[in-house]
């Protein structure tokens, strides 16, 4: 068992689970989507991205790419949330909530791809 692999797998899976936790629920209902969960998902996703830095293999490159996609989507979701809560003045309407959640849904897809790659990589190793 390799501690590095444990940490790596932990962050990738955690990024996906947190993202999923934020995503589930009625898409337009702010009460179903906790902003702390979005924050946690974003931070874990950023850490997962940095962990993937510097891997020169092909699979490492795809890992990094999916992670960057997830970051981008989550940052967009967070910005939308900040814009809705503070700048529009009308707070989290169901329309704005739907936007944030659908953006995080895109990130979820990227995170799922990341997890699939992780599984595929593990199976390929046969150890």
């Amino acid at each position: 068992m390799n501690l590095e692999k444990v940490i790596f797998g932990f962050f990738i899976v955690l990024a996906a689970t947190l993202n999923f936790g934020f995503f589930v629920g009625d898409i337009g209902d702010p009460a179903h989507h906790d902003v702390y969960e979005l924050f946690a998902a974003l931070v874990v996703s950023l850490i997962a991205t940095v962990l993937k830095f510097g891997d020169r293999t092909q699979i490492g490159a795809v890992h990094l790419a999916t992670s960057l996609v997830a970051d981008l989507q989550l940052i967009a979701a967070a910005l939308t949330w900040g814009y809705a809560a503070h700048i529009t003045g009308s707070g989290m309407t169901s329309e704005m909530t739907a936007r944030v959640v659908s953006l995080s849904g895109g990130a979820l897809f990227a995170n799922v791809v990341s997890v699939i790659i992780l599984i595929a990589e593990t199976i390929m190793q046969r150890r």
Partner: protein
Amino acid sequence: MKPARALAPLPRHHSIFFLIMRRLRAPLIVLIVIIAVSVFGLTLIPGVDADGQPTRLSFFHAFYFISYTATTIGFGEIPHAFSEQQRLWVMFCIYLSVIGWAYTLGTVFALLGDRNLQQAIQMQRFVRAVRRLREPFYLVCGYGETGRLICRALDRLGYRAVVIELDESKVGEIDLHTYAADVPALTADARNPETLEFAGLTHRSCVGVMALTNDDNANLAIAIAARLLAPHLPALCRAESAEVAANMASFGTRHIINPFEKFGEYLALALHSPAAWHLLAWLTGQPGSTVIHHRNPPRGRWIICGHGRFGRVMVDAMKSQAVPLTIIDRSPRQDPEHTWVQGEGTGADALRQAGVGEAVGIVAGTGSDVDNLSIAVTARALNPRLYVVLRQNHYTNHALFDAFESDITVVPSEIVANECLAILGTPLLAPFLAEIRQRDEEWCAWVLERMTRRFGWEVPRVWSERINLVRTPALYRRLMRGERVTLGMLLCSPGNRYEALGCEVLYLRRDDEAPRLIPASDLVLQPGDELLLVGRGGARAELALTLTNEHALNYVLTGEDLPGGLVWEYLSRRRKPHATPSKSGEQET
């Protein structure tokens, strides 16, 4: 022979980015965690708003506050005055963020000072510079004295050069020497084929490889890499030992240059036919230098001091010209052909014993510059009329060698450089020089007299032209139409056709005929002819204009200016329909 060093793996140029990212992984994660913890804490800690109501900072405000605090910008702007709990937490955050930034910046600066990274960056810069070269360039391996001479000459001739050199300080010198064009240089081992490839061995603009290091084995490695990776490129390799030269020849290295053997040939030629020797020196000198008219080496008894690599070649050269020899060496051999004297040539005793008073020439050919100078000075003192051939081993001693006026100073690096330039610049020169060696003294004297009277003793430009569609489109089209053009007609100035162009044809090669030396001016040219020309630099450009430009060629041949452009061509054809030859093949058909 030096033991082979282990080849260090090359810093891969494309790995810089990954190297930086991998090293920054830990500090970046620390930074993300610190900011996340600070923001998260700030959203949880209760505060009070302006009305005294309990409230909490939202993520937006918390992130805003941490952003300006952590980056030490420190705006005072906050939505509400902080509560005591919040102040406590912010104090903690401030110290935390300072640690985070200090760690990150420290890592970044350590990374920038990292030797591996700097090498990788240099490598990348070099690779990019080479990749962007669009002009023809030569790959020069080894920037010693020879490499420096060659780079200078290439620069003067308008070619680019790429240098690989093992010694970092010599690479640094390249920046100090003023070259007209930028010379990309890399500190690396040229024996590594990867290095050669990065330096442009397989680049399509690379026109030749020169292995000029002072290590025969390295030159051998370069030769074999060039043979396998770029078989079409001419490779010029310096080899000072016979075994390495034979090894290079075995896999088909086209040009192997042994400076000592080359000098042996020159000296034999000089003894055999001084005019041919002068002609050769004049044609193959460093561009821009002037050939000093040497005293001709006399025939009679010669003394050779030192029977090493150089001495042995000298003995062979003298033997081929049937010159009687006395050899001074520390360990004489039993050899009935020559007289041997035991001792050091530096002492007057040994020289007297060798008969320096009656000898006509002396070769000071030991491996030590100081000994050679000492021999020469002592011998001159004993016999002032002595013809002195001095071997100079190290370029740094050149002031001493200049001060002693020897008849010939043998500088291996110069010999190699001259030979390289002659081979590269003008492939026809080698067969011409071989031809000269076959001719008699009288003929060579005539050629030398004729050329130097016209062009002076300064080393001329020597170049080749081939009459084909690519090199000389204008002339080629005319010849293919069956027109008769002689050499005399062609060698006129395109500015004024009554003035002769400042160049002469030395040698003409035609596919199925014997080559002609100094062809007469009424010789009719044919497509596919190869010419070796000698002349001043300006003449080359003018001749190139005549050969490639239809208008210039028409003027030189007929004295009429061709009208340029379709309208003028049309008008002039209407005015005098027979006068102007059609401009190109398409209009004829």
